[in-house]
C-alpha cells in the first residue's frame, strides 16, 4: 500500500515564494495575493496611461525636431508599458475594460504625481530625471517580484525607463548650459517636481500597513522609506552635476548614517492629491474618460467589422 502525500496548496505557494520561484497564472494563489496584485498592477498600468498626459502636453510644443521625436517616442513607450501591464493584470482574471471602468469611476488610483501640471519645457526634463528616476527606483526591485507575468513586464519596462531617465537628465543638462532664462526655467521645474517625486514612494513605513504583507509575498522588496532614501542619495549627487539646487533647506550629507538627511514631507498635500483634490486630477480623468467615450463608436465598428469578416470566412 502506498502512502499518498497531500500537500495543501497554500504551502506549495509559500514554498515557491521561499525558493524565489515565480507564481504563474495557472498556479494556485491566495485570493488576497491575487487582489493585491490586481490592485497594484492595474494602478501601475493606469499610471503609465495617465502619465502620458502631462508629457503629451508638450509634444506639439517641443523646441526642436529632435526633442519632439524623442518626446513622442517616450510617451508612446508609456502607452506600450500600459499595454504590458494591462496584459499582466488580465492574467489574474480581470478585463482591461473592467480596469478602465475602475479608473474612470475613480475606484482605481494612479500615481499622484501625474496630477501636477507641466508648465514649461523644463518640466519634461524634470519629469524624466526625477519622476522616471523615482519610478525606476520603485520598479527595479519589481523585476524580481514573485508573480511571473508582472516580473517579466517589469524587466521590459525598466530597460526603457532608464533610457527615459537619461533623456530627462540630458534635457536638464542642456538647459543648465543654456541661457540664464533656460537655467531659471530648469531650476524652477526641479523646484516644483522635487517634493511630488519624493511622495512617489508612498507614505512613510510607519503608516504603510500593507508593506509587511507585500514583502512577505515578495511583491515588494524594499520599504517605502528605504527606496526614498536611495532616491535622495542619488539625486543629491546628480543635482550637483547639473548645477541645480534641490528645494530642501534641510538636505545635508550625514557622515554618520552615510546618507543624506532631508526635510519633512507635506503628507497633507499628498493626501489631498490622492483624494482627488490635486491641481489636475479632474483634467486627467476627464481626458481619459473623453478618449474612451469618443472611441466607443470606433471600437463598436471594429467589432462589427470583425464579426462580419468571421461570418464571411465561415461561409466561404
Amino acid at each position: 500500500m502506498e502512502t499518498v502525500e497531500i500537500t495543501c496548496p497554500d504551502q506549495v505557494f509559500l514554498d515557491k515564494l521561499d525558493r524565489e520561484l515565480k507564481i504563474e497564472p495557472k498556479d494556485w494563489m491566495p485570493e488576497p495575493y491575487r487582489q493585491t496584485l490586481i490592485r497594484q498592477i492595474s494602478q501601475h498600468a493606469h499610471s503609465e496611461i495617465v502619465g502620458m498626459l502631462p508629457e503629451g502636453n508638450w509634444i506639439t510644443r517641443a523646441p526642436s525636431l529632435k526633442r519632439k521625436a524623442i518626446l513622442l517616442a517616450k510617451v508612446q513607450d508609456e502607452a506600450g508599458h500600459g499595454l504590458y501591464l494591462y496584459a499582466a493584470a488580465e492574467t489574474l482574471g480581470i478585463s482591461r475594460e473592467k480596469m478602465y471602468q475602475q479608473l474612470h469611476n475613480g475606484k482605481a488610483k494612479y500615481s499622484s504625481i501625474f496630477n501636477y501640471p507641466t508648465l514649461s519645457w523644463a518640466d519634461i526634463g524634470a519629469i524624466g530625471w526625477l519622476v522616471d528616476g523615482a519610478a525606476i527606483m520603485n520598479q527595479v526591485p519589481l523585476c524580481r517580484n514573485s508573480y511571473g507575468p508582472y516580473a517579466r513586464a517589469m524587466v521590459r519596462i525598466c530597460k526603457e525607463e532608464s533610457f527615459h531617465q537619461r533623456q530627462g537628465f540630458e534635457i536638464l543638462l542642456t538647459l543648465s548650459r543654456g541661457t540664464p532664462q533656460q537655467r531659471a526655467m530648469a531650476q524652477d521645474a526641479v523646484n516644483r517636481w522635487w517634493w511630488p517625486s519624493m511622495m512617489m514612494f508612498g507614505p512613510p513605513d510607519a503608516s504603510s500597513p500593507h508593506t509587511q504583507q507585500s514583502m512577505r509575498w515578495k511583491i515588494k522588496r524594499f520599504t517605502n522609506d528605504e527606496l526614498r532614501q536611495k532616491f535622495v542619495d542619488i539625486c543629491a549627487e546628480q543635482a550637483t552635476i547639473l548645477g541645480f539646487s534641490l528645494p530642501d533647506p534641510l538636505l545635508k550629507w550625514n557622515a554618520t548614517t552615510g546618507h543624506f538627511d532631508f526635510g519633512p514631507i507635506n503628507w497633507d498635500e499628498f493626501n489631498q492629491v490622492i483624494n482627488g483634490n490635486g491641481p489636475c486630477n479632474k483634467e486627467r480623468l476627464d481626458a481619459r474618460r473623453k478618449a474612451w467615450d469618443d472611441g466607443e463608436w470606433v471600437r463598436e465598428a471594429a467589432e462589427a467589422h470583425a464579426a462580419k469578416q468571421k461570418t464571411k470566412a465561415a461561409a466561404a
Partner: protein
Amino acid sequence: TNARISYVLYLADNALILGHRNSEWCGHGPALEQDIALSNIALDLLGQARHLYQYAAELYNQLNPSAPVTEDHLAYLRDVRDFRNCLLAEQPNGHWGQTVLRQFFFSCWQYYFYQQLQHSNDTQLQAIAIKSLKEVTYHLRWSSEWVIRLGDGTAESKTRMQQAAADLWPYTHELFQPAAFEQEAVSAGYGVTPGSIEKDCLGRIQHIFSEATLSVPVTQPGLHSGGKTGVHTEHLGFILAEMQFLQRAYPGSEW
C-alpha cells in the same frame, strides 16, 4: 536651386504638419493599440521631415554660406505663407475616422509619389524616397484597413466615414496640380510629375472604398488648394503658433 529648395520644403512641410496633427492624438486614441500605431506614423513622418529639412538646409547653406540654417530654423522660424504643405495635411483631426481617412488619402499619394521619386536624379531625394517608402507602405496598409473597418462596420461608422470623405475629398485634388517648383523639378529630372500618379492613386482609393462599401465623392479641382504656394486654410496659423512658441520666445537658444 531655389526651386529645388522649394521642392524639398514642400515634401518636408507635408510630413511635418501631418505628423504634428497625428501627434495631437497621443494619449487620446480610441484604444491603446491605436494610440501607439498612430504615434508610430507620426514618428515616421517626423523622421522623413527631418531628413528633408536637413537636405533643404544643406542646399540653402550652399547658396547662403554666411548665414547657415538648420532643420530647426526651417521648421520653427517660417510663418504660414512660407509653409508649402498641402491643405489636406493641416486639416483638423476631427474624429478617429477623419484622422485615418486623412492618413489614407495622404499615404496613398505618398506611396505612389515616393515610388516615382526613387528614380530621381537627385541621389539624396532618391535615398529619402527609398527609406520612406518602406514606412509609407505600412501607413497605407494600416490606414486602408481602418477605412475598410469603419466603412464596413456599423451604420454609424459608415455614415461618419462617408461624411468624412465628403469633407476631405476636395483637398485631394491639390496634390496632383503642379506648382511652378514642381514643373522645374520635373524638367530638371529630380521631381515627379504630380498628375502622373493621379490615376494610380484614384484606382487605389476606389478599390479600398469599394471594400469599405463607401462611395468616392465626385468634386472638381477648385479652390481647395494653394498650400504649395503658401495660401493655407486658417488652421495652419494656430498649428504654427503652438509649435513654434519656444523657438520664437527664446531665440537663439540650444535645446
